[in-house]
């Protein structure tokens, strides 16, 4: 699965499992948060990513 910002581009090139990221310059982070909050943000993102790997893709 792919964590990215430009979902339409991901879909166009055939990425079938894609979800929104924290941004172009920090896909799995957010520099505006405190380090603790940023790590929570990342954990949430990764858990959602793993959930997507568990789901079938509807064609």
């Amino acid at each position, binding site marked *: 699965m792919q964590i990215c910002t430009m979902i339409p581009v991901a879909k166009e090139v055939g990425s079938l499992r894609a979800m929104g990221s924290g941004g172009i*310059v920090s896909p799995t982070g957010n520099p505006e948060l405190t380090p603790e909050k940023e790590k929570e943000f990342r954990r949430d993102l990764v858990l959602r990513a793993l959930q997507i790997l568990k789901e079938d893709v509807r064609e």
Partner: protein
Amino acid sequence: MTEKIRVVHYLNQFFAQVGGEEKADIVPGFKEGPTGPGRALQQILVEHGEVVATLFCGDNYFAEHSEQAKEELLRQMARFKPHLLIAGPAFESGRYGVACGAICQGAQERLGIHTVAGMDEENAGADLYCKHVYIINSGDSVVRMLPALRRMVTLGIKLVQGAPLGRPEEEGYIPRGIKRNAFAAKPPAERAVDMLLAKIRGEPFKSEIAAPQFHHIKPAAALRDLSSAVIALVTDGGLVTEGNPERMEPGRPTRFTTIPVEGIDRLDPKQFDVVHSGYDTAFANQDPHRLVPLDIMRELEQQGVIGKLHESIHATGGAHAAVENATRIGQSIAERLKSAGVTGVILTST
């Protein structure tokens, strides 16, 4: 045409002379009259038209807030009452190309004006928008600025004046997949035989029907049980070991890195580096977990949420990657991971 064509020009923050990657998150804005390549645009337009305004937006801002950015740009554009929007050329810059396509489609649909974008045919924006928007194939290099602008202007004037357009290869735009009836000098049977004879003689010939390019991708089966899954981390954001010993190119990559992370709980910024010419790498360099979530994955492995984190991270750079190279890199990484028993991948993209 007696009335001058009112032209609005869309540029990214770089070409609008606002700033480089450090300004890639600026919100939409405008300047009256032409700016940067807009000056050349004005010279090409001569008496036919006037560049009344330059609209711009940061590449990252547009990518991250596409809808808001588009709405705001359309609102600003409407005030100038343009007849024609010229967007770019964006050459091979993917974020910029996608923004050009989106703003052109929006302006056509919402403001009812003609638009012409410019970008390389391999730009992600070309694939996404070529069916809806006239996109002049600018080539991938900024040295082609003037010829690209000339073709954009020629096409734009024809659109505004309602003049008939030539075939895509004559006008220089990327085919939109539209078929039009035309008179041919010879009937189909003769044309087909001519083509066959040319093929047998080894001479060049051109099919009248473009072969469709299907790239159907079969989805991988879902992972039923994460607690036995082997997950690998991959990124196109340019992660390398400090000093870049594998010599991964910051742009136009032809290779990928293999970074051993077995037994490592966190990516120490001193031991890793981010090499990528397509985005501001400062934040990822400060904390590589913003690019590759190794810290969280290691914790989830220790907690038994996932079976195992794969022993290596693979990385390449997405900046201006040729499709051919990117495909080969992707396939090589996938083959390696499969043969190593990896069952799932998280790919992070900048």
